[in-house]
């Protein structure tokens, strides 16, 4: 199924935008503020210290009272850049994950454009891909649609390499929404940490499918990794399926724990969940609109 960027979809996006306005009442220049640790004056929040954070923003008084290393977060008002990094590796082809990701990407982009933020879309995975340069204003949504339509799934995920390349090519910091299945043999931690080190505000949206978590396989099969092409002969038993489901759940949970530990907003969505429900969940959780 290909993502349908048609009239009804546009209406849905408009509805989402209206809803988003209720969640957040904007300001004059850019209608939202970006969270930047240290550079603002208005205290926003605390979060756990992680290695690499600027020690200047440690809240020593909290440390004195609670013996915990917490970092003070300040809000800085500025023109917000929203980077939506969409995984277009071969693994996203399975179970319409890419279509779902494109839809969510379009929705977030629309809201961002409508709020006059600078929205840029960066597909990754496989060979080097063009990015959609930062745009502003609802009028550019069709450019977004066209761009997304041309994104085809191929190649390996290689999240770290993609994000490393992204941070080095992107001068303006901002919100970095990573939409992916996070199926990367090399892991996701390095890539996400890199975003944080370069002062981007990452948001993780993990797309998965029930069919991936509980595949309906049985008997003697030859498994082929869609990205690496690696072959493996296995005999699928009930016990193996059960183990796989547990391993998959553990993998997702690990990602969630990783994000929670670093204050990275984390959202997980099955492809059967309506995309607007996911988008609203993202809005309500704050971060994207706050």
């Amino acid at each position, binding site marked *: 199924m290909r993502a349908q960027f048609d009239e009804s979809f546009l209406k849905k996006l408009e509805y989402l935008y209206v809803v988003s306005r209720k969640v957040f009442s904007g300001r004059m220049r850019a209608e939202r503020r970006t969270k930047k640790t240290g550079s603002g004056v208005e205290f926003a929040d605390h979060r756990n210290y992680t290695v690499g954070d600027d020690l200047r923003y440690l809240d020593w008084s909290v440390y004195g009272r609670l013996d915990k290393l917490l970092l003070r977060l300040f809000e800085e008002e500025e023109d917000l850049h929203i980077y939506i990094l969409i995984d277009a590796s071969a*693994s*996203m082809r*399975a*179970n319409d994950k890419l279509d779902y990701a494109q839809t969510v990407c379009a929705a977030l982009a629309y809201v961002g454009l409508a709020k006059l933020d600078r929205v840029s879309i960066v597909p990754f995975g496989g060979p080097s891909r063009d990015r959609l340069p930062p745009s502003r204003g609802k009028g550019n949504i069709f450019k977004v649609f066209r761009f997304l339509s041309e994104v085809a799934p191929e190649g390996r995920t290689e999240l770290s390499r993609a994000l490393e390349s992204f941070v080095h090519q992107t001068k303006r910091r901002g919100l970095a929404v990573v939409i992916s*299945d996070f*199926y990367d*043999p090399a892991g996701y931690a390095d890539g996400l940490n890199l975003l944080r080190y370069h002062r981007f505000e990452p948001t993780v949206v993990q797309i998965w499918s029930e069919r*991936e978590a509980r*595949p309906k*396989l049985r*008997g*003697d*099969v*030859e*498994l*082929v*990794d*869609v*990205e*690496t092409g*690696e072959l*493996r*002969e*296995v*005999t699928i*038993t009930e*016990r*193996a399926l059960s*183990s*796989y489901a547990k*391993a*998959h759940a553990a*993998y997702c949970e690990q990602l969630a724990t990783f994000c929670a530990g670093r204050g990275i907003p984390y959202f997980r969505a099955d492809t059967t969940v309506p995309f607007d429900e996911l988008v609203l969940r993202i809005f309500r959780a704050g971060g994207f609109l706050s």
Partner: protein
Amino acid sequence: MTLAGAPLGLLAPAFAVLGAAVVALYVLKLRRQRVEVPFADLWQKILRDTETTALWRKLRRLISLLLQLAMLALILGAIGDPHLSASSRGRTIVLLLDTSASMQATDGRGAAGTTRLAEAQEQARRLIRGFGAEDVAMVLSLDGRPAPISGFQSDDRELLRAVDAAAATDTPADLERALRLAADALRGRTRPTLVLLGDGAWDDRVLARVRLADSTEKEKLSTIDLRGVDVRFAPVGKSGDNVGITAFAVRRYRANQTAYEVLVEVQSFRDHASVARLELVQDGEVVNVERLELGAGERVERLYPNLAGEGTRLEARLRPESPTSKEPLDAFPVDDRAYALLPPRHKLKVELITAGNLFLEGALLLDENLQVEKLAPGNYDAAATAKYDAVVLDAFTPPKGSEPRTHALYLDPRGPASPFPVAGELDAPLVTEVAADHPLMRWVTLKDLNISHATRFALAPGDVAVAAALKQPIIAARERDGRKTVALGFDLRRSDLPMRVAFPVLVVNALDWFAGADTGLLATYATGQPWRLPAPPGASELAVTAPDGKTQRAPVHDGRASFYGSSAGYYQVSPLPPSDAPAAMRQFAANLASSSESRIAPRAELIVDGRKLPPPEPGRLGVRRSLWSYLILVALAIALVEWWTYNRRVTV
């Protein structure tokens, strides 16, 4: 362990070939379904957890292969039908099933008309069903020619089939031969058991010679040794009620061949007086009826002289006194009928080769059943003699190579072509030795015969010196290759033989002997004995059609065919290769004619060697000796285990 089915020589290569096929199929790589997964690393992880060592993987595949090879071996083993070797606990049983004529008596227990054989078969079936699992048994038939109906079997169905196949014959029971056969079959076997199933109406003299236990008496050759054999007796029949024909003979008169006389012997085996009606039937028509009054156990003979008729088939029937009665006369119908055949009247064609001999011609004229053609010696043609029944050569000896092609009577043969080589001359010989038993000498006496000059013959083996002078044969007879030859070593005109009564009798005797010697008393054949049937010249085999319509072949040796007949009635005989000669097709009759077999009184118990034979016992339970069913069950169990382990992914 023995294989009753396919031999090991076949099973071993079959296992090699099929086993190789199983291994080849096993070695072939399984074609697996290819499935794309987005993240193979997750699968790697869980497979690492569940997988054991590669050695175990190989081993469990090997287990699967071994299970399949074991299944193959078991199935092939079942095809081989293995049997356990003789067990020391199982019995070896011979069921001696009486199928002699008396078993056709209709006094068997059960519905009216049940024969003793049917009762014995039912008992045999019950016994077989009660056999222990380790017992093996064989069924022997007891009639005139005892023979096994089955081999030693542990399979009940085979034994039941053999019992069902047993049929009663019209022959007396040859108990001695049957017991010796059973003793031979049981020799060296485990727990030998002999079960006699019959009416017990057997020869007491044979039973008296049976030994069941060691004794101090000196063992004789005639002893039937059943020592160590557990002999048991299951009696059948309940009535000894019988009146039977024990002899039946018919003959034509020599002088008047249109008439004949009949001898019938009837015996009552009842313990009370009875009345019966004796009918003589010729070709289906009753020609004589007589009411017979018989005392208990009485035997009567009846001679019916001067009977006449064109028919050839004679039958004697015993019936109830009342002609309208439909009840059988007694319980044993087989001996209530007897059969005989009148020989067809047939004029003998005789060729007389003579220069003129009134004595001889006069003698030949005496017999009205002769058709004589006279020929001068100069017109003799050897080929033409084939169409005559006999040739009489008077003082004429055909040269070598031109011998008559039929029976021949030589009078004073001379020279090297003489049928009996001339060994010398005798002057005024006196007949001192005569073969009185020879058909030629019937009613003939050569006492004081005067011969002026005679030739003495040199006899070959098989030749008979009918008359000799001081051991020098002067009358000789020979029967070879179905052809008979008689030679008188003197000229009739140089003796006083033509003046004697003996001369025409001698000539007629010679011609009767040529004709087959069947113009005398027509003794019918007795069933249950080997018969020596006369065969026409040139026949190498006879086709004998029994009363039930079945035809068997009987090979001919020395002019006679050996045949064993087991049914009473009329038999048809035709020579092979087929002959157009009118005398070629012959008939004869056969009768039970055994007073011992007609004595059908059954015995409720049998005492042998001073011991009462106990009834048979059922066997005991045990392991079946035929193993194929167990092998199939094990193969099935292995198949289930293999299926279960495959589905549980234990052996893949």
